[in-house]
């Protein structure tokens, strides 16, 4: 997005944030639910974008971490713990499990890694479904309470939407800081050339595990918000297709682009809603749209924008060069 002038970018950012705060105020219950879902899925997709887009480790297990976070939050809040404590527990738990899942990534890469994480995803689903003493089994957990934030009850859809939006803001800032820190640079080095990263003294082993653990922890946060959002969870939403959906969000938005997950989640959550007037055809149209987009631009939507900006910059640069050249010639 570096083609814009900086003040313009800041103005655009403020306008988007203001719109996200103000516009939903007169949305109905369902509209707010969908927007809250967008915020939650964006957090999960941002985590996957760190693992996949920045550190280059393919994971098909992000949905399982959303599930882990959701169950942690559901179990704790229904037993009287406050939501922030539950979120903290979800972060610790998914960070730890994500760290362990990162170990296979030290041995195998690319598609093999995708298969290991896919298997993990299915195993997690089986645990959610079968350990009914803990997770309620196929009946799930109902009556998940929504929190009181600074003494304000967030039972109504609008206040809880602000909880989701606020969490998204905090996570976005943290990720923004992370990818600009030395850690973020180490992640990118891991993706671009692991051998050279290692020879430059980057502890690739630790950063691979970190990339998994941090990405998974964000999945856990998303899950911990998902549980009070729907107020009822069962194993079905956390099966393999959620992991595949999240992966699609990251790729469609643009893997390795900061704003990719925001756009990807918007398309995955909102586009089906906009296409609802087509009734039974909306998921089919969504699938076709994703395929067409990927054929056109395998780097996602932001990839198109990126190429356009790059083309404009080269054009501007060559125009400048032409001017300079003609000046030089006249000077001679």
């Amino acid at each position: 997005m570096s083609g814009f002038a900086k003040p313009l970018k800041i103005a655009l950012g403020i306008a988007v944030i203001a719109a996200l705060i103000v516009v939903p105020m007169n949305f109905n219950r369902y509209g707010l639910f969908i927007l809250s879902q967008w915020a939650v899925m964006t957090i999960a997709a941002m985590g996957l974008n760190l693992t996949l887009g920045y550190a280059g480790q393919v994971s098909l297990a992000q949905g399982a971490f959303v599930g882990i976070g959701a169950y942690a939050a559901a179990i704790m809040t229904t037993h009287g713990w406050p939501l922030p404590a539950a979120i903290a527990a979800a972060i610790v738990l998914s960070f730890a499990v994500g760290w362990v899942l990162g170990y296979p990534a030290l041995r195998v890469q690319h598609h093999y890694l995708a298969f290991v994480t896919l298997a993990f995803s299915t195993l997690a689903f089986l645990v959610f479904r079968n350990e009914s003493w803990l997770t309620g089994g196929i009946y799930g957990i109902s009556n998940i309470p929504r929190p009181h934030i600074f003494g304000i009850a967030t039972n109504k859809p609008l206040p809880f939407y602000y909880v989701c939006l606020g969490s998204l803001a905090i996570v976005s800032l943290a990720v923004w800081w992370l990818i600009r820190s030395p850690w973020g640079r180490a992640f990118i080095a891991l993706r671009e050339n692991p051998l050279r990263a290692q020879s430059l003294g980057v502890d690739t082993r630790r950063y691979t595990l970190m990339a998994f653990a941090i990405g998974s922890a964000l999945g856990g946060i998303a899950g911990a918000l998902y549980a009070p959002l729907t107020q009822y969870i069962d194993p079905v939403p956390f099966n393999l297709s959620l992991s595949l959906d999240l992966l699609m969000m990251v790729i469609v938005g643009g893997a390795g682009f900061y704003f990719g997950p925001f756009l990807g989640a918007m398309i995955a959550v909102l586009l089906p809603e906009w296409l609802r007037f087509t009734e039974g055809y909306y998921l089919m149209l969504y699938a076709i749209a994703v395929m067409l987009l990927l054929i056109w631009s395998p780097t996602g939507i932001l990839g198109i924008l990126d190429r356009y900006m790059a083309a404009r910059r080269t054009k501007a640069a060559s125009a400048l060069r032409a001017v300079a050249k003609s000046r030089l010639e006249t000077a001679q």
Partner: protein
Amino acid sequence: MSNLFDLLVAGLATGAIYALVAVGFTLLWQTSQTINFAQGEFVMLPAFLMLAAMHVGAPFWLAIILGILLSMVLLGLAFKMLLVDPMMRHGVLPLAIATMALAIGIKEAVKQFFSAEASPFPSIVPTGDISVFRHAVSLQSIGVLVVAILAVVGLTTLLNRTSLGHQMQAAAQNPTVARIIGVPVERMILLTFLINAFLVALASLLITPIYLAKFSSGEVLGQAAFIAAIVGGFNQVRGAIAGGLLIGVLDNLAASYVSTQYRAAVPMLVLIIVILFRPQGLLGRAEERTV
């Protein structure tokens, strides 16, 4: 003992079907680096094409032929030309994601244009039992095994004994050199897509009478074939066959000896262990690691 024997036969029968699907899966990977996440849906669709042909009045044998031909056009030719060809140069991951989207598209199309309910499907082998070594074995299991074995033997003969098969292997193993010595690589790749489409249509014909035709039935099947391909060896046809049989038998044994709740976990654990300790698969050859 009798119980174990029954389980083994049933496991081998489902395993043989997994093997067919897994072989197609590895063929696509070898020739075009396509990880087809829609492979399960590819198995689900031909049954519906055959049902549709019967709806418009075709007899069963004609419906089978039409279904297989249509599958080869849709899942072979169209899949390659419209999705794989434009995306191949962009690398493995975007194409894999596109096939995930394709899986959603096929599922939804079947749900919308055919039915969301499970439909019964006629069997090509008569139902009933025959006695083998004083055990009652269902004719269906034997029929499935025979057809699958014939298909696999036919395929391996094609690949290993004919000039066409050698050209296909050359195109898969080293496209550049193959091109130099005059192998029509593009045509060979198209051929593997057609073979894959034929195999999934055959698998569809064999498995649908057992599990009914349903838009969502591809999910489980695709995953089983996927695991079979990896456990056996991602880059070897014989690996995929062994993997298919192994997963089929394990699945059936796990259902009765481990627990019905965790039967699906056994193939997953096998998968994780195999990938961690022998990533090239039980029968695969090691791939050089790309840096």
